[in-house]
């Protein structure tokens, strides 16, 4: 260690006595305070805060502002870091008492720092910071807060009065539930990559709230953070069968495979059908295993106009269609199935189907079913099952050579994917193209997935592939998007909530903003999941109405140069006043402050932009504001005092490391 005995720049270390120096010969408490308030401790804390803050910006870049706020900046350990800093400041100042004039600057700077930290602590978690969306001409008072909200409402049977209703609501932070990594885990991610799940199934359900008097507990069992905005389906203990269909297309010369539309098909009364360009996908469920067998093993050959296959009371009956001699009848005991009409190239015209020579061949049959004094009529297309008819009617399948052997010679484009779910939970898949006939056949087990080409193959210029996911029992749920976490995808938030009651539990997926009603015996329980909101009228005694939004632009330009909102402030006592909120000119009212933050086009009831703008305000109330301002002023003032009252002697320097 070099010994330098030369003049050092001010403030001369001789004027300075370190905290540890001052603690020599003092009691253990003083020595502890001196150690906490020492310059090396301060330097260590400064370095630590710098490193943490720097790394946290990467957390924010990877997972977004709200996640970083929830899991880093508002976390207990982050607060502890600043409490440590505040403690070090207090100790450093305290051990120097009584202060001399050249220390006044030092004291003021550190007092300023302390005031600043106090300002943040004072505002704490109660600081109001939300968004207020103001469509033109509408009175608004609900602020969206950066937190989620879960509510439970229990309505006993026959309770007409609100008094009998039990309710409870809590604010919840869902980022850790959604599988966002902790800061410590994030630090390890360069060496041990972290893959954030699209749906995070919690190993231990997270308790949200309880209603002990009703014997109910609400827990979260899973959170989906990257789901499509429109509801999808999720596997469940009970519910309707559903198939998820996604179509991909590649055309020659195209480097990128194009994703065509997709969606969920459910086997409800209308059957599930999806038509995308040249590809039709049909989905139905059969009750009878005999029909499933007939579907899975189509005949090797068929008459020219196809064959109607009817399963009634567990027995298969076939009727070969002769389009030239209609109507035809199939009599099975007391049941009569009549084929009244066949249309080869159907097209919807004036609300009814008619034959159109310009259309592609896609034969359909008009059927009438009759038994005793009841009868019904329906259309069935080749390759499709007759959708389940209300009441006890047979299941039918219309097989046509078009979808079995094709039209030959490459005529016609497009194809069909026929999906049939069975009572055993297996999905039968058959594909066919108009030109070549039958393609792939497959069976997909419950919860399984299947991918294959429908249109295309050797020599074909175009290829359409289909991806299926099969859920024999499903309920509304989140539809996870194909996300790449490295690309910072964000989408809708869903939560799977389990309502625990004495007899068991009920699970439901809810999107943010969704609610579910669950019947428990004679009680009706409503679960509600949404963004946390604050009613400005209740909390601050006013609401606002956007009168006019003004967007200034540079001449001839399309970019915003300024924006401002003219609003009416409607006070709870009935008074009203006008005000203008613009960028850099907020509005102070009722203890809160409104800032012009953003705007978006207003969408009318018809789904089209109305040409007017919805103004978005940040509404904030920070009770620590003046502490922050005072602290800032003290820090700057103290730095100037440090300079002003610096010791002007130059004295020999102490031993230095460098």
């Amino acid at each position, binding site marked *: 260690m070099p010994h*330098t005995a030369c003049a050092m720049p001010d403030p001369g270390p001789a004027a300075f006595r370190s905290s540890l120096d001052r603690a020599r010969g003092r009691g253990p408490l003083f020595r502890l305070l001196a150690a906490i308030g020492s310059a090396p401790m301060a330097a260590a804390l400064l370095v630590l805060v710098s490193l943490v803050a720097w790394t946290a910006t990467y957390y924010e870049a990877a997972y977004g502002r709200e996640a970083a706020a929830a899991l880093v900046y508002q976390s207990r350990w982050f607060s502890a870091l600043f409490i440590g800093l505040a403690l070090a400041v207090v100790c450093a100042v305290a051990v120097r008492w009584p202060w001399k004039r050249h220390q006044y600057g030092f004291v003021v700077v550190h007092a300023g720092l302390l005031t600043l930290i106090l300002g943040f602590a004072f505002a704490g978690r109660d600081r109001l910071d939300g968004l207020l969306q103001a469509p033109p001409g509408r009175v608004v008072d609900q602020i969206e807060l950066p937190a989620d909200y879960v509510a439970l409402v229990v309505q006993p049977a026959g309770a007409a009065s609100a008094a009998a209703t039990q309710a409870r609501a809590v604010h919840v932070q869902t980022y850790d539930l959604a599988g966002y990594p902790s800061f410590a885990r994030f630090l390890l991610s360069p060496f041990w990559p972290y893959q954030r799940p699209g749906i995070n199934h919690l190993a231990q359900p997270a308790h949200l709230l309880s209603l002990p008097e009703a014997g109910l507990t609400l827990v979260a069992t899973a959170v989906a953070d990257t789901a499509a905005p429109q509801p999808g389906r999720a596997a469940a203990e009970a519910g309707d069968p559903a198939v998820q269909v996604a179509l991909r297309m590649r055309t020659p010369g195209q480097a990128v495979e194009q994703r065509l539309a997709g969606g969920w098909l459910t086997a409800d009364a209308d059957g599930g059908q999806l038509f995308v360009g040249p590809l039709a996908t049909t989905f139905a469920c059969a009750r009878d295993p005999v029909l499933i067998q007939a579907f899975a093993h189509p005949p090797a050959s068929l008459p020219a106009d196809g064959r109607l296959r009817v399963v009634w009371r567990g027995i298969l009956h076939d009727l070969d269609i002769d389009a030239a001699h209609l109507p035809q009848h199939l009599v099975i005991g007391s049941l009569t199935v009549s084929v009244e009409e066949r249309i080869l190239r159907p097209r919807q015209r004036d609300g009814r189907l008619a034959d159109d020579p310009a259309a592609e061949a896609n034969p359909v049959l008009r059927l009438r079913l009759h038994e005793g004094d009841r009868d019904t009529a329906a259309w069935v297309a080749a390759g499709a099952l007759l959708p389940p008819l209300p009441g006890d009617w047979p299941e039918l399948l219309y097989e046509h050579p078009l979808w079995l052997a094709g039209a030959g010679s490459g005529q016609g484009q497009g194809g069909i994917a026929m999906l049939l779910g069975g009572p055993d939970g297996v999905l039968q898949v058959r594909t066919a193209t108009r030109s070549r006939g039958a393609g792939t056949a497959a069976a997909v087990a419950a919860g399984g997935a299947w991918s294959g080409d429908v249109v295309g193959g050797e020599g074909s210029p175009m290829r359409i592939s289909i991806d299926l996911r099969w859920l024999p029992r499903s309920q509304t749920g989140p539809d996870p998007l194909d996300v790449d976490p490295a690309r910072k995808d964000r989408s809708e938030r869903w939560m799977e909530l389990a309502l625990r009651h004495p007899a068991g539990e009920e699970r439901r997926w809810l999107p943010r903003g969704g609610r579910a009603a669950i019947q428990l015996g004679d009680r009706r329980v409503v679960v509600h999941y949404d963004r946390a909101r604050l009613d400005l009228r209740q909390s601050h005694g006013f609401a606002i109405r956007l009168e006019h939004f003004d967007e200034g632009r540079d001449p001839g330009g399309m970019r915003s140069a300024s924006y401002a909102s003219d609003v009416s402030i409607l006070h709870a006592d009935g008074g009203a006043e006008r005000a203008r909120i613009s*960028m*850099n000119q907020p509005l102070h009212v009722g203890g809160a402050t409104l800032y012009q*933050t953003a705007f978006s086009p207003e969408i009318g009831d018809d789904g089209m932009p109305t040409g007017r703008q919805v103004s978005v305000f940040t509404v904030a109330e920070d009770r620590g504001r003046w502490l922050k301002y005072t602290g800032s002023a003290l820090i700057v003032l103290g730095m100037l005092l440090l300079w002003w009252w610096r010791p002007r002697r130059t004295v020999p320097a102490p031993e230095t490391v460098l």
Partner: protein
Amino acid sequence: MIRTILAAFACLAGLAAAESSTTAILSAPIGIAALPVLHEGRVKPFAVAAEEIVLVVAGKTPFGLVAAGAGGERRLAVRVPAADLLVDWWRDPAAWRNRPLVHVPWLALQGELAIPGQWAAPDELGAAQTRIDAVLAERRQAEATGLRRAAGRDEQALVELARRIGATAEALAGRSLLLAPLAPDAAARAWVLETLPPLLERESHAERPWRAQVREAVRRPTANDQDAALARNDPWLTAEDLCLRPDPVLAALVATGQAPADLIELLTAANAWWRAVLGDGDYPAAHARLDAALRARAARRDGELRARGVGSEQVAGYPGPSLIALELAYHRARPFTWAWLAFLAGALVVAGGARDGSPAWRRRLGAGLIVLALGITTAGLGARIAITGLGAVSTLYETLIYVALVTGILALVLWRTLHRPGLAVAGALAAALCAMVGEAIPPEYGASIGQLQPVLRSRFWLWLHVKVVVAAYAPFVLAWALGNLALWRAGHAGRPVANDEARAIYRCLQIGTVLMAAGTLLGGVWADQAWGRFWGWDPKEVGALIVVLVYLVPLHLRYVGWVGATGTAAWAVLGFIAVLWSWYGVNFIQATGLHAYAFGSSNRLDQALVGGAVLAQALLTTWQLVHLRSRS
């Protein structure tokens, strides 16, 4: 060491000064440069707008004709001023569609599209369009599913290429430049609303911006709304509409004789002007007539805006002739290139006269050169402030120039107070480096005077917060230069850093820390005023905080003797990495994906350069410290 650095600087200066010979394509008439045109939301001289347009399309100015080299590789063979080039594009757009002019700097795309070099002819880019369409379709699909997805690098390159192809088509057609507001007052708006809709409905060929805006406006449900929407859209007529291929709709309206007289005069003057540009007629007279017609119309527009109460600070008005002349002069003079040359010369002269016994006139001459450089820089920044009417410290380019100015002033002041010429040498070298980097970086970093975001349009805060924070970088730059100098001298002499050198560095760190802390806290107050929160852990805020904290560390450790003279010098050098992070890194390295300002292969190169320089500096300083420890 100093000699090596100075030699390197001199070498770079020589390279920059070397002008390549230019051959005119179609020389535009003298005087065309000063024609006021509207481009990117600001009325500016034709020559300035032309350069910005050529830069977007060709990525380089002056640009001109590209020729194939011996190996088929395309290289720029003829360079002409941007104004001449733009006029030639207008004169013969069909020929230019077959000439390489669209900048395609991405190697992967060059290979894929079989372009032998950096430039492609618009007609060669048909294949790219298929891919661009596919990428855009994919994006739309992702958006339709509710997924907000950031693009990968290849995708970004394609989207950027699509933007350039669009900009090229606009430039060749004469649509990039706007000349005159269509409907500046209530009477003219009424005329547009009554007369145009039937013609707009019949119109089927390529959409013009002004027509699209009018169409949007006339779709409003009530007359009042239409009026307001038209005023808000503020449609302007393009050079194509007015001069090159006058719009048939406008021409038809003028032919009815019911159009306002100033519109008729404008169209007539503009037609005559274009004929004069092509050599048919007296250019100065045609120019003066068009200029007068444009100003008459703009005066009506500005009066209308003022009457509506929006022509004030928020929306810039039409500039007077003197402002156009000032901008043109600023643009031609390239003051900051001269400024860094003067800084460099000042540093060389002071260094030459710094030894004991050197004549005093050398130091005085050096000081004079540095003062001259400061004067040029101040004048240049003053011109930018006059042109924008705002603070002129809003882009990386402007901050570099501003830091050069403050560094130069600080160096002179410290030289006067501490009587060490080395301070002036280091300060002037650092200032020269800042201004030179500013001039060398690609124009997308803000060399051209662009538009400001709404939140930045507050003179008060732009001066109070931004100027203070950026001014804080200057003492840190100076401390960095002094630190390097001190460490080098210490290593050379085989002793620790001298205390008087450390004292100067320490002063710089003190000044910088006070300014940085004050500026950051003022930023907190501004953020509280503008956004509703004092501190939001925004990366830029964190960057500033880290700078303060990093420099506070040696200020604390000095007291207990953990950091001495050598340590102060080393900290001034290494701590500068935090400044670079806050200044450059936050915006250009960390800001990937959704928050990216600029991207492209050149940006990666910049990052590699900055990263390499930082690494080299860190290694050098570490080696110097180890070396010093072992020698002592």
